[in-house]
């Protein structure tokens, strides 16, 4: 079984904004594209044009619906939920590995698989409570998010692009990369401001990646306050929609008065 480092110098990870993610799958395909030609074996697609295409992906977007208990609580909401390895502090996928192929780097906390040492036993995938590892169908080695370890330090890439491929491509800017071990980093501040959350904290894995929850939906706060104050009463709209007229004739009278002021 493989040991975890006692601590890591940095905690590199992703902060994913669920209030902004539109579920476009850009991160999924960009990840597949970059990681098919870099770290380790390419991400193969079996039966690629057939009845049951199955490829390995390091990142997938899931979609969930949440239905409020009563209609008064507003309409159902839809959440797009991108999921990849969370690079946990207490990564059970590492400790379960019989060969040392699964490991967590002490310098930056990234969890990786050394494919030459991987025997494809699949224990790590069973141990991961997030389902974040996938066995490559062609090579029979375990694939997982590398946080684009071959990009983020890569001196052949312009400095601005030394970020994971999913972050670089995300059209809405819903994905952020940085050191979550540094409370002063942009990502740590974002987590503090927006109430960033751990995924399934009860598992005790100490995930490094954080999720920013969707903001409350519905009418704007100013209107919600009105509505609460006047629940049941019709006129929650003053002063913005006080009628100036009841019909066309009254409207023309108002028009005349208003134009006099312009």
């Amino acid at each position, binding site marked *: 079984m493989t040991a975890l480092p006692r601590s890591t110098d940095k905690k590199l990870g992703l902060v994913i904004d669920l*209030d*902004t*993610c*539109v579920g*476009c*799958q*850009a991160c*999924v*395909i*960009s990840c597949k*594209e970059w990681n098919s*030609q*870099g770290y380790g074996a*390419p*991400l*193969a*697609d*079996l039966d*690629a*044009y*057939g*009845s049951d*295409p199955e*490829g390995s992906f390091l990142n997938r977007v899931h*979609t969930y*619906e949440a239905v409020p208990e009563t209609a008064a609580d507003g*309409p*159902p*909401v839809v959440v*797009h939920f991108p999921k990849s390895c969370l690079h946990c502090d207490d990564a059970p996928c590492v400790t379960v590995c019989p060969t040392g192929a699964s*490991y967590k780097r002490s310098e930056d906390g990234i969890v*990786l698989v050394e494919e030459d040492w991987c025997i494809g036993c699949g224990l790590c995938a069973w141990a991961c409570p997030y389902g974040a590892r996938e066995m490559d169908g*062609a090579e029979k080695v375990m694939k997982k998010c590398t946080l684009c370890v*071959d990009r*983020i*330090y890569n001196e*052949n*890439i312009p400095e601005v692009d030394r970020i994971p491929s999913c972050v670089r*491509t995300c*059209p809405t800017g*819903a994905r952020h990369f940085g050191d979550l071990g540094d409370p002063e980093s942009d990502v740590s501040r974002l987590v503090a401001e927006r109430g960033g959350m751990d995924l399934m904290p009860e598992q005790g894995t100490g995930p490094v990646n954080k999720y920013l929850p969707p903001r409350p*939906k519905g*009418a*704007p706060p100013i*209107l919600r306050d009105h509505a609460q104050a006047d629940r049941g009463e019709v006129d*929650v*709209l003053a002063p*913005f*929609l006080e*009628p100036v*007229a*009841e*019909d*066309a004739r009254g*409207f023309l009278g108002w*028009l*005349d008065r*208003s*134009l006099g002021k*312009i």
Partner: protein
Amino acid sequence: MTTPKLDPSPRVSDEIRKTTCYMCACRCGIDVHLSGGEVSHIEGNRDHPVNRGVLCAKGSAGIMQHVSPARLRAPMRRTGPRGSGQFEEIGWDEALDLARSWLAPLRKSAPEKFAFFTGRDQSQSFTSWWAQAFGTPNWAAHGGFCSVNMAAAGIYTIGGAFWEFGQPDWERTRLFLLFGVAEDHDSNPIKMGLGRLKERGARVIGVNPIRSGYNAVADDWFGITPGTDGLLILSLVHVLMKAGRIDLEYLTRYTDAPFLVNGDAKSAEGGLYLRDAEGKPQVLDRRTGKPAAWDAPGVVADLSHEWRHAGITHRPVLHHMAERYLTEEYSPEAVAERCGVPAERIRALAEEIARVAFEEEIVLERPWTDWKGQRHERMIGRPVSFHAMRGISAHSNGFQTCRALHVLQILLGSVEVPGGFRFKPPYPKPATAHPKPTANPKPGEPLPGPHLGFVHGPGDLLLKEDGSAARIDKAFTWENPLSAHGMMHMVISNAHAGDPYRIDTLMLYMANMAWNSSMNTSAVIDMLTATDPDTGEHVIPRIIVSDAYSSEMVAYADLVLPDTTYLERHDCISLLDRPICEAEALADSIRGPVVPPERPGHEGVRGFQSVLLDLGHRLGLPGMVREDGGPVYADYADYIVNHQRRPGVGPLAGWRDEDGTGKGRGAPNPGQLQRYIDNGGFWIDHIPEEAQFFKPWNAAYQAWAVERGLFDSPQPYVFSLWLEPLRRFQLAAEGHGERQPPEHLRARIRETLDPLPMWYPPFEQQAVDEDTYPLHALTQRPMAMYHSWGSQNAWLRQIHGENPLYVPRAVWDDLGLTEGDWVHVISPHGRITVPVALMEALNARTVWTWNAIGKRKGAWALSEDAPEATRGFLLNHIIHELLPPRGDGLRWSNSDPVTGQAAWFDLRVRLERAEPRDEALPAIPAQASPVGVGPDVVRHAKRGG
């Protein structure tokens, strides 16, 4: 413990070439990495104005498109029956001589018998120029079945619409409303914009029957009933006008709100603007109380008074609006049930709009001068903006609905102001500055003008002397007079019916009309294969198709001209066409071949535009043959650089003149393409700060636009709340004028071509019993797919490999459905049998599915048991291009009565439980694949070099 060794700095590629993506219509800039001479990695171009570095799922999956097994390999001639997919490969000379032998006689005798329609073509200014040189009136692109209602309503009303015409002021808007948005259009810019709004804490509101994608992140969602958006918008207008929450100063200065409308109901000018002897629209001058030309110096237009003269009262446009919209007919209470939105929520929405527009006014301390010479010290903005596309367009009341949305923006004073909607050059451009459409073909001669354009009254219709349609698609006729993009969806049906006439050769480019781009797919397939019993020939005798891939349509071609992939070709994203400008900049771009199209086994592919130039030369078309008989243009790249549409104005605006200093105008520059390549594939020219807002009225903008060749003289204008062209058609329907509509259309023209936006129930809804067909059925295109292009993409098909019918909770429970169930979906035109899935965040009277996931067996190099070909399905089979028969013997098209836009989203259905099965119905028999089936395993691994 030993730590594995890792190279943190592997070499990425040998070389980066920059070009323009073509995985959808967005036209993002891409960096294409090459390793060992092959494409290895594609990412967004950080410098590019459209996407600024980001790239969507389609764009990143471009590699799989480029290496697709569905790529055609060589020109092909049909050997089996139409639709069989049986072909023989032939050489280019043989292919083009064959095409020439079909087309040359037509050009000499009856050029209209050649019809040329293009789908997702990004070279429309080129293909239309070619068709014009041929002399056929029958050319158009796919706008008629896409979003012409939005484009036409926008251009007629404000001189531009959304997407390619304009954009929200993403940096300043505080409230953004999305109506019925197709999530694939303007995909990255909208996603980037939404991200910016979220970052700034601005509010996003979605109005859409389906809460997916953008609507999922919207702060508030209105799950409106399809086809009622116009009613909701006009109810907002009702509430806002009633509360006096409209921008009177803006309306007075920049719109026709003060224009007097001729009140003489009996006159042939009744309901048009009151005009003076010179034809100038009149306003009441507040200084004198007398009418005066609207643009006369010093006139102060009066919104509030009417003018009584010779016993007739002439009232300003705003009075007419008050009279219409302040009636209870448009109150939230009156519309709530039909819209599926409670009245108090409509009021709350109006409140939010009013509050942000008028309480959160933006002031930019940026002086500017208007076209009358008046200097303004600051720019006042109303930070409410909108975006809408196909969702509200693709209804038979879509034009009036799109008009309503533009009118709402005008009333708020939020067009071309900080925080509102902003035009992108070459827009603003009013309908009056566009050409009018042309037909009247003459054998052996080019068409005397452009095919498409903007009509302003019955005199502009394209009718033959006997009153029948001059165009095969019946665009610009009494049935749909303002059909500015043509009506591609009617071409096959009309040609088959011989109504208005038969054609000989149909040429299609990048259009899958035998599948997902046609209404009534099964019937269209029959039309394509039908034979004339008298002659034994096909009713549509010859079909030429150009596509890069083995699509469903290819199987119906007699001659196939294989196109290249987008990474192997030249293109220009031209200002003459559908540009990529930004609100603050003029921009255009190119595609250059990042790899040559000479791939093993595929030596035969050629870029379609170059092929068309070759064919044009063989046909001797004007503008394509030199005096010595040689071709004017060696290929499309040569055309892009050297063609001049007007002296000094060509396909590309950047680096004109020999020395590359010309912007917009200038002589052709032989080094132009290299300059584009050196600059990353695009050219951008920023608008001066003073000219960035109030463009239709801003003297600095107008001067800049003339300098850049967008116009030849300044074109200031006011917005049209009142649409005179529509009124002119109503006058004809009332009996005025020489050119009269057929009797059966009079009532409909009077009712629907109203000069002020109004709402009527969609036609199909009017024609069917709502208890028999209680549900609305819609399609959407997913963000990660685009039409057919995506389904044979090894990566994207793993995301969207099948498309269940999504059913709302109430219907689901009613039918007692469970996961894995199937239903019959029954419309007035037919039935399909499909798998279902439950969706909660859905309008209670709506079912929907993803568009164009379903594939015909044998197409796209997929195996015949691929889920796209078994469980995937098209709703198209049960959407008819005609309305249900009314018993009058006439063919009424299922289109908008103003523009002819296909009313895809008017579909009404009912569901019945079906026995679970393995395959969706109808099961169309397989076509043979001319390219075989794709490989079992795909492993993309190219790096390092």
